[in-house]
């Protein structure tokens, strides 16, 4: 079998796009629920992305080098009296990949792609 190649899934592209938007709004790092909310708001979906779908996508993007992550400082979580969050950030590769995907989409079809953000 040839090398296993692929493309960004619609949810993954949407996820990176939302993360880039958050970064532009001054939040370069995001946690799972925040990005789920952003995706819902951006796509106009009624429901938030499911836990399993979201964290599987985040994990895959991180393994692909399009996202990087770290645990939140324990003090920050303790002050807010909540569990520690895993914070993600889009890498330069991630931004490049998103730009490439968007460019390829425009070449393939002039129509906007259907929203598939939630599972």
């Amino acid at each position, binding site marked *: *079998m*040839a*090398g*296993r*190649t*692929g*493309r*960004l*899934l*619609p949810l*993954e592209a949407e996820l990176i796009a939302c993360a880039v938007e958050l970064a532009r709004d001054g939040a370069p790092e995001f*946690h*799972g*629920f*925040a990005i*789920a*909310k952003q995706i819902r708001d951006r796509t106009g979906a009624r*429901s*938030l*992305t*499911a*836990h*399993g*779908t*979201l*964290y*599987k996508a985040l*994990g*895959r993007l991180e*393994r*692909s080098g*399009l996202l990087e992550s770290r645990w939140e400082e324990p003090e920050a979580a303790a002050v807010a009296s*909540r*569990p*520690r*969050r*895993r914070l993600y950030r889009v890498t330069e590769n991630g931004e490049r*990949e998103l730009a*490439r*995907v968007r460019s*390829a*989409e425009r070449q*393939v*079809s002039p*129509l906007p*792609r*259907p*929203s*598939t953000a*939630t*599972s």
Partner: protein
Amino acid sequence: VTRLSRLARRIAISWSALYTAGLPEEPRERRRAEVSADVDAHLADGRERWERPTRTALAVLARSLRGVVHDLVWRSQVTRGPGRETPAETRGRDALAAALWASAALAPIAAGFAKLPDLNGLARASHAYQLSHAVSQYPLVELAFAIVILGAVGTAVIALFTLGLFWSKTAGIAWRSRRRDLTAPVVEIAASVLGVVVAFGILAWSYSMLSRAQRISNAPTPSWRMAFLIAWAMLCTAAVVLVTRGLTRLVRRAPLDAITGQDLTILAVALSSSVVLSLVGVACWGVAMLAQAPSALSAIPAGGWAAMLALVIVTLILAVRALRRCPLHELRGGTSDASDSPPALRR
């Protein structure tokens, strides 16, 4: 924090504890902590927005429920090693999961009518529903029976579609290497039609078996009938398990790099069509029943109607989602070769 919110949080966290059990420490603890933090953030967000706690709790539960398939797939990936799933595989699994959900949703609808059809039923009205009459004194057994049988048939149909897709893809690639004027979609559509024919053959065969089984179900004592039904249900369950396992292995081992979004579009359209056809079939079935036994419908309680309506809606939503998932823009683009795909996400 209401009781329902606490319950929703507990269910979501318990589910994450369950599907991560036995995994290596790093992925296990990370997933559990992420889900826990997510659920807390979700509930806190609902409080900040003055959302009704019940609504927030139900949303948390829905997110857990909708992610079940991906949770299990993720566990499977962690167990067998990272980095082996391609986007095509993920799409295939999504389409498959939607179709399985739809099949599972259709079965109780049919069970709601509390009858199993006989192909010759219209001609032999008085004997058409002997089997269901024999079972009707055990409503739960009847329900399980219908779910298992229709689940088995649905899974077999889906398996055939998937198999047809992979086979036709392989055949199409081989064919085009000699005759470049034949496009892959032509081969795939032909294979899908063949798949439908074979699937209906299997359906007819299973109904024929059911007709024969009626003789057994006419056994003199209820305990014999019960024993027969349990044995039949176990057989069908085993068939469902085996087919599902075989299908999963097939999806894992197939040369998925050669499967493009276009192929999955065709698969999704075929699956959605089968769901719609099934719904139409169930509706015709109900009308036929009503014509033969008008009292049967009046025997269905209001809760049963509500459940059936809910299942119809869920099924339609799943069918629409299955269609929306598929990358229709790729069909318009007309690319079908894996070599056309821009390389990305090399792992």
